[in-house]
């Protein structure tokens, strides 16, 4: 069985993510099957396209339910970029679209951003007991989660205003940045998550 199952419901370009797992010597497989996502040892939710489009694709395959199941049963998950954002209730990006609803917050356009999207390498700074490393990570986002949800530990990034760069809760890790494009730092974060679960 694969080490990691990567949810592939979107119009995703998953090549970067799959190559990153291969470079770490892990076996990753893509899946569009909700039952697999229920049972897999590790699942990655990559972020592609808009909040609304991502949710539509997830709902179509029964993935929102499968993700809530994993959350309730504390089964490991790693979310990237829009993958982090869809865990929220809703987003300013897509009016009327409902998120997976695991965290009771809304996604907003990055307040006071110099330019949008934010493209490039920015500091990820862990707060308190955030268990993952700090460092430079690659971001490509226009929307963000402005606060760390209760019960999660988080890291911040500053781009005009401060928002969540990454957050973790038991064996879940959600990154606003792209670890698969973040050089040795990203590889370190991915390895750390795999080792934690």
């Amino acid at each position: 069985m694969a080490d990691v199952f990567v949810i592939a419901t979107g119009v995703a370009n998953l090549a970067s993510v799959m190559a990153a797992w291969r470079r770490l010597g892990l076996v990753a497989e893509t899946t569009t099957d909700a039952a697999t996502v229920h049972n897999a040892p590790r699942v990655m939710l990559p972020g592609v396209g808009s909040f609304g489009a991502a949710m539509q694709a997830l709902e179509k395959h029964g993935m929102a339910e499968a993700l809530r199941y994993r959350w309730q049963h504390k089964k490991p998950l790693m979310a990237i970029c829009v993958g982090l954002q869809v865990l929220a209730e809703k987003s300013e990006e897509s009016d009327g679209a409902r998120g997976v609803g695991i965290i009771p917050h809304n996604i907003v356009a990055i307040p006071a951003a110099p330019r949008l999207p934010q493209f490039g390498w920015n500091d990820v700074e862990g707060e308190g007991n955030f268990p993952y490393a700090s460092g430079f990570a690659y971001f490509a986002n226009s929307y963000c989660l402005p606060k760390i949800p209760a019960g999660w530990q988080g890291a911040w990034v500053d781009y005009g205003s401060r928002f969540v760069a990454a957050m973790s809760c038991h064996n879940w890790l959600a990154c606003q940045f792209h670890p698969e494009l973040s050089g040795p730092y990203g590889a370190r974060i991915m390895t750390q998550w795999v080792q934690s679960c």
Partner: protein
Amino acid sequence: MLTRRIIPCLDVDAGRVVKGVRFENIRDAGDPVALAQHYAITGADELVMLDITATIEKRETMRETVRHLREVLDIPLTVGGGVREMGDAENLLMAGADKVSVNSAAVTNPAMITAMAQHFGRQCTVLAIDAKKNSPTTWEVMVQGGRKGTGMDVVTWARDAVARGAGEILLTSLDRDGTQQGYDLELLRAVSAAVHVPVIASGGAAHVMHMVDAFGAGADAVLAASIFHDGHTTPQRVKAELSEQGIRVRL
């Protein structure tokens, strides 16, 4: 705080890097994969690969190159050149590009920018503009590798393309490209003031002070080819010098 990006550019023809590569410390400097890996290890923040292959039959070679690059590359990759329709963009993204740049095709068919942004996302959609100076404060959009004028004003086109969904602008000064006289700062100022998306400066870089000037004129990132291909310096060394000049970079 966001850091400024240093982006080496590879011009690739039928799977081989073509423009002025004079490396001695790489076994095969014409191999885009070897060169890309070298740049990633030595501090490049991102890579741009432009396909200058003239014939359509050789396009499959380019997709194969992108696939090989993706396997080794742990930084973002933008691929452009010869993207004529949505299918071309999709093929490059599926092969492993993180962003696709369009140039001539977007001028002929601006709706393609909107289609790309809607289908793949703004963050995948880069507009490349080749600019030629008409007067001290106006520039014309050139297409077909800079050979053909369009009569379109660069600043107006940049604004229009961003409204249609372009998420980043790769801005090349044809007047400066290959001259080593530095980036066209007036052009950079005009375009970066007109749009709210990041602007990548391209054309004319010969040393670090040119990059400092480009950032001062509003560039979010700088593209450079020959300065790195010569093998005399690395992105890492350039970034150390930029840092000494007060520019925030990832070191």
